[in-house]
């Protein structure tokens, strides 16, 4: 029996979106290669998740062990090593998330199976598995093939595939005894932490003026501050601005920052790498200002301006102030 594995991802009592995105893609691929779609669920007290997953897969393999309660790549790897060695799925899909990035490469190495990470698409061409990846910050796509193998591992970029409503599968829930025999000794999970909330909640703002590395220097901040003020909006940013300490943590938009959905999002000097795009793509109206016409941000925006921000932004600010008077 051929199988295609999807590793369910959950945290703090919730199945994460990437799980359903992978199940959607996994269903399509499993039909193509005539394999059963199997959701693999590891954790502790996870019965509710199993029921949900059974709607989306032919089978749910569930391993319940207190040592799997919080994600710990050490424990997860040991369990998956056993499971994949034994059942030899044609393919295992894992999310390209903080969880999958910590797990997939070492798992593939231990199993001696080929791995492709951060894929935006994949397909079987006969026996061969091909993937599409993005490189150079989203400016170039690559089609690559994996070394021929009876089993592959691929990590999928989150928010790339749309999760579809399932045709209820009523999959079998199969409990498997935990293969963990020893304690987990090298790595210990201690706790989660959330940074303290700041004064401005960008997730509630109607108008966001977001700046990226194109602003170049902290001394240039007034240029965009004036625009935000003229529009009655708030300032947000891409990651490098927070890394440099020019704006506080809670102003960062993106996968590791905040997801925003304002009426207007003006992206200034932001290249538009997927970690940023996934935090702002659902804004009602997106205007991007970037001097590079090939910047990926223009693929997410409604209106684009290919210009030096230091020329356009002051002019725009003036025009808005005139308009308001």
């Amino acid at each position, binding site marked *: 029996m051929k199988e295609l594995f999807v590793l369910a991802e959950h945290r703090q009592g919730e199945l994460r979106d990437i799980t359903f995105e992978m199940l959607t893609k996994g269903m399509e691929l499993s039909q193509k290669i005539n394999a059963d779609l199997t959701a693999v669920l590891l954790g502790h007290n996870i019965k509710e998740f199993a029921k949900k997953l059974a709607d989306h897969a032919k089978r749910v393999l569930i391993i319940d062990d207190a040592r799997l309660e919080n994600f710990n790549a050490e424990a997860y790897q040991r369990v998956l090593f056993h499971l994949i060695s034994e059942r030899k799925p044609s393919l295992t899909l894992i999310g390209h998330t903080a969880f999958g990035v910590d797990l997939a490469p070492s798992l593939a190495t231990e199993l001696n199976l080929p791995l492709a990470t951060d894929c935006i698409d994949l397909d079987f061409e006969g026996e061969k598995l091909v993937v599409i990846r993005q490189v150079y910050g989203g400016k170039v796509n690559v089609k690559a093939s994996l070394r021929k193998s009876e089993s592959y591992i691929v990590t999928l970029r989150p928010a790339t595939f749309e999760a579809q409503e399932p045709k209820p599968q009523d999959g079998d829930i199969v409990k498997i005894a935990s293969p963990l025999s020893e304690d987990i000794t090298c790595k*210990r999970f201690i706790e989660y932490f959330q940074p303290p909330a700041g004064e401005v909640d960008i997730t509630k703002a109607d108008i966001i003026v977001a700046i990226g*590395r194109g602003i170049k220097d902290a001394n240039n901040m007034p240029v965009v501050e004036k625009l935000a003020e003229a529009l009655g909006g708030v300032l947000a940013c891409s990651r490098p601005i927070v890394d440099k300490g020019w704006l506080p943590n809670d102003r960062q938009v993106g996968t590791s920052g905040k997801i925003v959905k304002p009426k207007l999002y003006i992206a200034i000097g932001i290249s538009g790498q997927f970690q940023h795009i996934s935090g702002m793509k659902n804004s009602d109206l997106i205007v991007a200002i970037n001097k590079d016409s090939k910047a990926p941000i223009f693929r997410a925006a409604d209106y684009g301006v290919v210009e030096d921000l230091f020329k356009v932004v002051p002019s725009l600010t003036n025009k808005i102030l005139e308009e308001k008077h």
Partner: protein
Amino acid sequence: MNVIVCVKHVPETAEAEIAIHESGKRIKTEDLVFDINEWDDYAVEEAVLLKEKLGGSVTAVTVGPEDADSTLRKCLARGADRAIRLTDKAFEGSDSYAITKILYKTIKDLPFDLILTGTQASDDGCAQVGVVLAELLGIPHVTMVKKVETMEGLVKVNRELEGGLGEVMEVKLPALLAIQTGINEPRYISIMGIRKAMKKEIKVLSLRDVGLTEEEVGESGSWITVEKMFIPPVEKEAEILTGGVDEIATKIVETLRAKGLI
């Protein structure tokens, strides 16, 4: 604390015009400026901070052509004590897995307590090298590390997750940490530092020196092989506003007014 830090010499592409090479399998790099991978820059700084606090040494290692020496010099100027470059014609076409095998063969014989890498490289974005290296060495790893505290025989780290959430983990030494941007503030490198770094030796090792065969590296030793590179197809593209700067500004204002945003 003896720290090894793995670095990559990468082209800066965020603001550059990119063209695909005739072979269709790589980009043209002749006109691009190369520098240390952004994530590695933070890793080197963290390594030097650890050395300054606890003593020991920092060794920077890269797989790359002679040009990559400028990235190693940057590491030396920042405070690394030694630099190693792994170079061989046979390494061409290696994916991150094959590159990691080359690093592994070299690093396994060096004394270390901690290995640092960047979370990912800005060119291929694979985010594999650190985790594969840890597995080959048989040591634990943590990725996306935003804070490191050293303790007796272990490190306590903050690891970044999604949506602003983080987690605290304890890891036994020796271990490998893949560093995330923003963990520190990479220091300014002085002219003096650069001059001193120019005088330090960079050790260069080949396929034979590290004890690998040709089959274990390059395309044959890789997990994935590039079939072709292409500019992403346009699914949705912004309407580009053209004209002089004031004209463009007027167009934006009109749009915003029409949508009731001002």
